Structure formats: structure tokens, C-alpha cells
């Protein structure tokens, strides 16, 4: 099994880190410096499964320890390199992005707020209401039309369901807007998981934010809430390099075509 380099996160320091910290498989951690920043890594000589719970927890533990002393850009779990040279090449490529992120995320923390609502019941309610009114602009007299009628009914139900979700989400989100620098909202990851939100908060606004969550929790209704954090800013990393996974980027299109030409 060849030696690989496992990366935990990019930090805003090029100095040596505390020798006592250990990473996966109890391997020592190093900070590989690149200009005025660094990337914390450890050597790895075993295969790690994606679903290996202990390894993920270890990864997270390392990143959070680093968070105490530095601004950290946490790597996605299981980011490996074949050697130190490759790591430095990557740092060179992404230096500008890393600097921008480190500056933007300094002294900030991520909180997660999840909301569960009775999606199943709401969908049922909407469906029943639609069946009752049946004011669809279609008369189902033949197979094509019947098909369309049913699809259209489902379409309308879905649409109303999502509109109701948006309304609820706006209310929940509204509790936090005053205290945040940035946010990422994931809506309806399941029918019942109304909202999975990540909020970027100044460290000094941490208590205000938690108070806002308590207000939300006390606001009544049959929604359920979960607060988690503080997290390293997993959800607020923005990379602009062509290789980075960015939606709708024309650079991305170009680089794919270039890749084709090369082969």
C-alpha cells in the first residue's frame, strides 16, 4: 500500500503546528506551508472507506481542533494526494481562492438550523382539496387527455406544496437574518425536512444567534427545530478555479472540451 497524503484543511498560518495533535490512524499532523498559508496533512498508508464512521469523526475532530487556533477551510473528507509535491501544486493553483476564503471566513462560524414540518399531512390536505374542487381545465375523455389530467393534478399539488413550503421557510429564515453574514438554504430535501439551513455568523454574534433560535423554538406551531454548531465553514467555501465544481460555469464547459481534445 503506497503512502498517501491525507489533507484535513487549509489554514491561515505557515508555521509548525502543535506536535501533540494526531490524525487518522494516530499519524502525526504536519502543516505544509505555502507562502503565507498552509495545509494540515498526515501520512496515510491504509485504505479508508467512505462510510468509515471512526475516520469521519477523526477528520472532524482534527478540523475542529484547528478551528480553535486558526481560520480553517475544511477539506472534504477523503481528499488524498500522492505526495507532498502534488499538495504544493494544488496550493499554487488554488492560492487565490484560499486567500479569498480565509479572509472572508475569518472570525466567523457556521451554524446549522434544520426544520421538520408535517409534510406528509400537508401534502394529503392539499391533495384532498384538489380532488374535491376538480376545476381542472381538462375533460378526460380519451387516454392522452386522462394521462395529462392526472399529471396536471400532481403538478398542481406539487406546486402548491412547494409554495406553502416557501412561505414557512421565509418565516423560519426571518428569525436569523439580522445576525448573519451569509446563508445557504436547502429546501425540502425530503417531504418532511422542510429546511436545512447553514448560517455564517460572526463569532461575536454567536449568543444573539442562539437567542434567535430559542425564540424560534418558542414560537409555537407543530414544527420541530434543530440547532447544530459551531461548525467549521463547510458550506461557505467558494472556489472559482475551473476544476472546482461550480454550477453553470462556462469555464467548466471549456475545461471539459479541452479535456476531450487532449485524449
Amino acid at each position, binding site marked *: 500500500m503506497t503512502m498517501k497524503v491525507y489533507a484535513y484543511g487549509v489554514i491561515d498560518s505557515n508555521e509548525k503546528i502543535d506536535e501533540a495533535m494526531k490524525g487518522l490512524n494516530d499519524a502525526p499532523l504536519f502543516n505544509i506551508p505555502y507562502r503565507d498559508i498552509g495545509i494540515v496533512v498526515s501520512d496515510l498508508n491504509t485504505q479508508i472507506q467512505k462510510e468509515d464512521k471512526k475516520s469521519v469523526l477523526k477528520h472532524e475532530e482534527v478540523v475542529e481542533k484547528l478551528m480553535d487556533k486558526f481560520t480553517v477551510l475544511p477539506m472534504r473528507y477523503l481528499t488524498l494526494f500522492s505526495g507532498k509535491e502534488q499538495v504544493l501544486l494544488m496550493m499554487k493553483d488554488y492560492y487565490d481562492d484560499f486567500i479569498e476564503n480565509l479572509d472572508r471566513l475569518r472570525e466567523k462560524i457556521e451554524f446549522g438550523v434544520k426544520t421538520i414540518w408535517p409534510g406528509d399531512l400537508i401534502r394529503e390536505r392539499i391533495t384532498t382539496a384538489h380532488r374535491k374542487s376538480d376545476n381542472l381545465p381538462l375533460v378526460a375523455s380519451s387516454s392522452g387527455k386522462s394521462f395529462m389530467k392526472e399529471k396536471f393534478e400532481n403538478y398542481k399539488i406539487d406546486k402548491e406544496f412547494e409554495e406553502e413550503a416557501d412561505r414557512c421557510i421565509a418565516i423560519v429564515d426571518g428569525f436569523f437574518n439580522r445576525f448573519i453574514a451569509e446563508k445557504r*438554504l*436547502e429546501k425540502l430535501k425530503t417531504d418532511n425536512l422542510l429546511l436545512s439551513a447553514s448560517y455564517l455568523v460572526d463569532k461575536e454574534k454567536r449568543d444573539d444567534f442562539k437567542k434567535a433560535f430559542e425564540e424560534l423554538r418558542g414560537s409555537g406551531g407543530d414544527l420541530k427545530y434543530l440547532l447544530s454548531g459551531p461548525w467549521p465553514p463547510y458550506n461557505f467555501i467558494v472556489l472559482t478555479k475551473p476544476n472546482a465544481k461550480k454550477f453553470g460555469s462556462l469555464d467548466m464547459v471549456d475545461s471539459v472540451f479541452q479535456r476531450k481534445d487532449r485524449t
Partner: protein
Amino acid sequence: MDNPIKTLQDKKSYLDLRKQERVTLLEILDRALEKGVVISGDIVISVADVDLVYLGLKVLLSSVETMERLRGAPLSGATEEPT
């Protein structure tokens, strides 16, 4: 001599603790598996999943979005936010 109430309370808080652990792990997985600094390229030898297929599909999605922009109207229910 066991106080039955005490035992029951212990069990409940033990179960609560297990639930908390479950949620904590899920929250960590939710972040560390898919988010953070996501690098792809020849020098990275192990990235989670998608690779070539993903790149190909992004071209498709990017083209749809570009087409919509050029037409000046959405083709489907595509939203503006990535997630």
C-alpha cells in the same frame, strides 16, 4: 436494591444520548462527505464519487441554462440557486 424509577430515567437518558450521537454523526456526515474544499483534477487521487460522468452532466446542465438565457425564458423548473 434498584429504584425502578431511577433505572427507567437512566435508560431514557441513555437512549436520548444515543439519539444525540446519531444526529451528531449525521450532521457531521452531511458536511464532511459533500461540502468543504472540494478539489478535482489529475493530482488528486481520491475524490469521493462522480468524476467523468459528473463533468459530462455539468456540460448538459450548463448548456440548458445557457440556452434558457439566450431564449430569454426558462425551459423547465430550473432554479437559480445551485442547491
